[in-house]
Each structure stands twice: as C-alpha cells, then as structure tokens.
C-alpha cells in the first residue's frame, strides 16, 4: 500500500530542511563575503581602531561641520520625499484609473527612468542646468532674467535632480496600493452619498496609506545615502553625508571616521525601517479584501 494521502501532499509541497538549507548555501556564502563581512570590517574599524573607542562617533556630533552635513542630508532627503509624494500621488491615481494605451504610456514613463542609469539622468540635468544650458535659455527667452542664472551646484539643483531620479520609487508602491483598492469601494461611497472628493478623502486616501508609507520610506532612505547626483550636481556647499564619506575615504584615508559616518547612516536607516515596520502595519486593512 502507498503512503496516506496527507503525507503525499506534504511530500510534494515541501522539501526537507537539509535540502532547503543546501539551496540557501551559495546565497549565504556570497552575502557573507561581499556584504556582511565588509560592512563588519568597516564598523570594526570605526570602533576598535586604534583601540576600543567611541571617539570617531563623538567627532561626528562634536564638530559643527559634520553636524551641518548630517542635518543638511536629512533636510534634503525630507524635501525630496515630500516633492516626490506631491508629484507622484496624482500620477499613481491616474495610473490606477487608466486603461489600455494610456496606462501603457503612463507606466512606460515611470518604468523607463527606473531602468535608465542614474548617471544618464544626472548627466541630463548637468547639461540642462549649465550656465548656457536649456533651462537658462528658456528663462532668458521667457524674460524671467537677462543674464544666465547659476543653477548647477545649488541646493535647488540637487533637490530637483534627486526628486527626478527617485520619483519612480515613490510612484510604484503608491500605484500598487491604489490598484489594490476595489473600484466598488468608490461606488459604495458614492451611492451612500459621498461626493468624489469626499469619497477620496474618506476611503481611497486612508486605504492608500500603506503605499504612501512604503514609497516615502523608500525614497527617504535612498535619498539619505545618495551619492551620484549630489556629487555631480551639487557643490561643496551642498555636501551630503555620502559625499563626506567618500571624501574621508578617498582624500583623507580616514577609515575609522568614515566607518563612524557609515555607522551613523546605518543606524538611522535601521531605526527608520524598524519604526515603519512596527508602526505602519496598515497593510492588514487592505489584506482583508
């Protein structure tokens, strides 16, 4: 006689713990060698070189220059997140409602930049924002200014270019969240007496909050550690933490201090992720439908 059916079904669905571990082995090896170990060595550098000490971390907070960089980084990241939300939410709403060709075009406009090199997009902004670039041409042509304005190497340039680069990371989670809301909810709200705007505020908006949370978290985290765009579009006055880390490593070879800066960045990241994971369990509402 063969095995009872339940054992058969479990056998087909599951593999033994040994096999599942074996499948994970290459992953664990690669991640250990090229992820956990290097980060560990760097953090070790920040805490134990020359001897066990917190002096490198203290330095980040003691010297006003570094505090200013840290503060600027957080401020710019928050500003970029806010801009992405304001630009991205209506776009995601339009995408969630669109069908056919319109949807394909909108989705292409979001996906194509996402899969185009950050360098290409940053380069485009350096060309557009140059002294004799297209934006200055436009400003002069429209009569806003007589002489070219300095755009590149300003905080505005950094914020605009970063918002442009990071916008798709905001739109995609928002779109996913909005698309998951059944259209019947808006219909139910309408027939119960809600005007379109009211129905949006009472029903659609709250149900899209998980998307807002994950999109904002994503953009904020990426912005915090962003390197390429601020390095190329911003100047020394707009230095963010990633550029500072790069400078410590490449110009000053100060590994312990660079490690401390990375440690601060990592800590901030992990705290944010942990907080959002605990506080933003809004997805349980959407999961029910």
């Amino acid at each position, binding site marked *: 006689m063969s095995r009872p059916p339940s054992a058969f079904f479990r056998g087909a669905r599951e593999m033994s713990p040994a096999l599942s571990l074996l499948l994970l082995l290459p992953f664990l090896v690669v991640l250990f060698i090229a992820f956990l170990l290097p980060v560990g060595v760097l953090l070790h550098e920040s805490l134990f070189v020359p001897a066990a000490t917190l002096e490198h971390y203290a330095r980040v907070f003691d010297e006003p220059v570094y505090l200013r960089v840290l503060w600027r980084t957080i401020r710019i990241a928050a500003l970029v997140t806010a801009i992405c939300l304001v630009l991205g939410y209506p776009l995601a709403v339009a995408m969630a409602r669109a069908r056919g060709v319109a949807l394909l075009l909108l989705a292409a406009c979001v996906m194509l930049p996402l899969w185009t090199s950050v360098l290409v997009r940053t380069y485009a902004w350096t060309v557009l924002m140059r002294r004799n670039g297209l934006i200055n041409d436009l400003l002069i042509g429209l009569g806003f200014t007589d002489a070219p304005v300095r755009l590149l190497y300003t905080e505005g340039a950094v914020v605009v270019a970063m918002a442009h680069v990071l916008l798709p990371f905001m739109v995609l989670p928002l779109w996913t969240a909005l698309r998951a809301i059944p259209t*019947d909810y808006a219909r139910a709200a309408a027939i*119960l007496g809600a005007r379109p705007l009211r129905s949006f505020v009472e029903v659609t908006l709250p149900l899209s909050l998980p998307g807002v949370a994950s999109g904002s978290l994503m953009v904020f985290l990426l912005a915090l550690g962003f390197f390429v765009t601020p390095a190329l579009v911003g100047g020394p006055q707009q230095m963010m933490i990633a550029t500072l880390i790069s400078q410590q490593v490449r110009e000053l070879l100060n590994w312990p201090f660079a490690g401390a800066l990375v440690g601060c960045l990592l800590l901030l990241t992990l705290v944010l992720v942990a907080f959002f994971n605990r506080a933003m369990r809004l997805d349980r*509402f959407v999961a029910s439908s």
Partner: protein
Amino acid sequence: MTRAGEVAVEALRKTFGRVVAVDDVSLTAEPAEFLALLGPSGSGKTTILMTLAGFEHPTSGRVKLNGEDATWWPAHRRNIGMVFQRTTLFPHMSVRDNVAFPLKMRGVPARERGAQADEALATVRLAGYGDRLPNQLSGGQQQRVALARAIVYRPPILLMDEPLSALDKALREEMQLEIKRLQRALGITVVFVTHDQTEALTMADRIAVLDHGRLMQVGTPQALYESPENPFVAGFIGETAFLDGVAERSADPGGPATLRAADGSKLHGTAVAALATGDTAQLAVRPERIRRAEDGLAAEVIETFYVGAETACLLRTAFGAQLRMRIAAGADVPAPGETVRVAWDPAHGRIFRGGA
C-alpha cells in the same frame, strides 16, 4: 408627480462598443415592491442596476426615481441604498463607522450617528458588533452589515446585485428570509438582481426575466411559472419538456390547439399566441403535469431516478422528444425499456409558435 419609492426605466438601451448590454427595456417597480431581475449571466441585469445607481449612464432611454427623471443625476445624489455582490465594507473603518458613513455624508451629528448605526445593526441582528473591523466578521455577517449600511438612512429604494451569491446554501436561504422580512417591515422598494431562479421565486413580488439584454417577461412568480409567454421563460424557470409539431388547425390566443408531431401523434394544449393551420410550433409541459393515461402518447422509459419523495422518469417519445415525468412515492415505477402512455391536461400544455 413624485411617488416615493417608485423605480422605472423607460426604453433603456445601453451599449458597450458593439455589445448591446441592455436592449430597449421598460420596467417599473412600484413603491414597496420587491422586484427581482432574473436572467443568465451576461443578460444585462447588472448593467440595469448600475444605470439605476448612476454608475453607468444610458445610451438612450430614461431612468426615473420616485417619479422624477434621474437619468443624469450623479450617484451620490440619488439617495438610494445598495448592496454589492462582493463586500464593500470599508476595511479601515469599524463596523459602526461603516454603518454611520452615509449619515456622516448627510451631516448627521456624530452622537446621533452612533445611536442610529447601532439601531440599524440591531435590525440585522448584529447588535454589539459595532466595534469590530469588517474582516473580523464572517461573510454572512459582512453582508448583513452592508445591508444595515444601505438602510440606515431610510432610503426609499434599495438595490442589490447578487448579494448572497458568495454565501453557502444554508446561509443564503436564511438571509433570503431575513431580507424579505426587512423589506416588508421597512416598506422599501427593492430591485434585486439574481441568476438563481429559486431565489427570485422565493423572494420577489414580481420577477423580470432578461435574456441578451431584452426583457422577456415580467410577472408574479406564479404567472411566470404557470403561464410563461415565450419558450425562453418556460425553459429558464423550472423544468420543462418541449415537444415539436405543426398546428392541425388555426387557434386563437388562449384557445385550445392541437399539434401533430412528426410521427402523427396528437399533442393537445393551449395556444399562447394565434396559430394558423400548418404553423410549426412547440408545446411546453412541466414534469409534474404529466401523468399516465391509457389513451395518451406512447413513450419509452429510458431511465428512472429515485430522488426520495418521488421517482423521476426519463421518457422518449416515438418522434424523438425527451420528457420527464414524476411518480409519487408508493406508485408503480415502470422499468427502463418499458413503453408507457402519458397525457396532460391541455390547460397545462402551452403552445408557442415557431421552434426547432
């Protein structure tokens, strides 16, 4: 003139591209009436309901609510209640807030809202469930909350689109009675979409049968069952055998008529529409009307099925038509292969012109 609770569509037509979803339907639900829209999937029931609710607008024709032309009113101004097929309880609001939602939209102060919502929950026998979230309720409870939410603001009209189709059979039957009880108690007009004929027969005061976007017949459950006006209705509601033949002589609507089948057998019934001699026609007769008779139509027994209270007998006539007969428990059951003779009261054999 306004008549609270009256729902009407006039010459309603709705097309989606080349699909004609609703084709020239005129229909009225009287105040406090329970009207069922019954038809197979794709027959246009939902489209009619969506037009009543204001989510679709007619290609041509009019919608009247409470006697007023409401064709172009936006949904949020129609003041009608609606229960959808799938739950539309807002998942981020408590059950009480869900039920209070329409009151909030109507500017009812917060304190009164809670009391009225609790009262509505009590009428659907869910008192005490107000603080839960919708996903903490069973499917049947969720639809009861949806019902409470649809009636809490006392709309004169309630629309329901297959609200029970996601529930299991026992629960569905319980809810059917409950909805019926509520409708009577509130005196509300209900337009109820279903593809389940038993549900329509059980619940409705009148049933509108739809097929391919066209209205086939409107009437009381009894009228539809006893006097279908066309073969579609005869076949769609209940069980029916169709026997083909040609009219022996002309007949008036409602008058006696006789068909001659392919093998010369005579089939007696009542003409639904006028017949001329030689017209091809069909006679429709229900299994429970067929009895054994010495001088009747000869038919061979193909198979018998024991179904408890009775035995169903599948017969084939000499001219190839199949029909079922019911034999009450205790009576003689013929064996397969045997030939029996059957007949029916001509009043119960309805003859339609045309056919195969």
